[in-house]
């Protein structure tokens, strides 16, 4: 699979996603259609309604801040863990547990606060910061407008 850069080649990748909100559910649907084996974890049952008919994976109802939930989702077997809950601190803790406790090779987490990025990356976690992404995008848009006027 082309998007699994640096991962060990195998037939089916096992991906665990924490948080089944707008982002988590979309990623789950997409990874499912890409042929990954996907498990989505959320503490609210209703959140799973966002999963489409394309989704072929499993759901785990539980609080990601409890280690038992991570065990139930078989994080130790995961090739990739995506941590996408709306709370930075939860994401930090879950990502760190996945990385340090369960020794997952690739852990990707969302951090809203750019101040948190350094702490994530120091522990080998890959960070997606929506704030910085938006800043970059808006800068580009503004640059384009400015370019038009000149």
């Amino acid at each position, binding site marked *: 699979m082309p998007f699994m850069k640096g991962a060990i080649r195998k037939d089916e990748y096992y991906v665990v996603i924490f948080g089944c909100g707008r982002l988590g559910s979309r990623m789950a649907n997409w990874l499912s259609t890409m042929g990954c084996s996907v498990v989505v974890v959320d503490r609210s049952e209703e959140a799973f309604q966002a999963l489409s008919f394309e989704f072929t994976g499993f759901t785990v109802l539980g609080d990601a801040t409890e280690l038992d939930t991570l065990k139930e989702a078989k994080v130790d077997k995961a090739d990739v863990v995506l941590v996408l809950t709306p709370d930075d601190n939860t994401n*930090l803790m879950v990502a760190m547990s996945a990385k*340090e406790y369960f020794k997952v090779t690739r852990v990707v987490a969302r951090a809203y606060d750019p101040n948190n990025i350094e*702490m994530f990356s120091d522990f080998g976690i890959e960070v997606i910061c929506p704030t910085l992404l938006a800043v970059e995008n808006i800068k580009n848009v503004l640059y384009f407008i400015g370019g038009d006027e000149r």
Partner: protein
Amino acid sequence: MKIVLIGGEKIAYHLARRFLSKGYQVMVVNKNEKFCEEIAKKLRALVIRGDGSRRYVLEQLELDRTDLFVALTPNDQDNLVACLTAARVYGIERPVALVNDPDNKATFQMMGVKNVVSPTEILGSALEDSLFREQITNLLPSSEKISILRIEMTDKSPATGQAVKNLPLPKESVIGAIIRENEVIIPRGDNVIEEGDILLVLSNPKVQSSVFEVLLGEV
């Protein structure tokens, strides 16, 4: 040195009171506005309203390396981030975190937060001790991997009068010694347990309750 208490309402209040009475300088950081007002009225502590896991809040505390930094919120993730930030950004040497889920202890320690207190665990073992206080003493209360138990046998114990080999003890446990009238017997299968014997039992904490059941009966 000052004491910095992050989050936690009743516990923070009582800890603040305790340390103030011992003459320490105490700082209380809390998200709850009402709680902050109350504390400010009642105690001589410095009160700061805000989320103690955020850097811009910790910034205001003028932390010093030697400060005692304690995170007491009901959310493990907030305690972890507060302690990590205190240690990494402000150089606090030994931040203390409360963990609500005792399973998270290992994660905290792996991340470098070595001082972890789990109220659930403390209460749990206190409760277990009080349940069997009369007949059982855990000789190694701090270990999670092994229990060394001292168990007194009475005439009511189902194991009394039985040979060790006939006791349905779980595999992960063993009777290491029997103390009988100041004599120590290292038991083999044929030894029969008598009333008044004191057993020293080694066991995996996970099977501890079935050990009690076999030796002392339904509790």
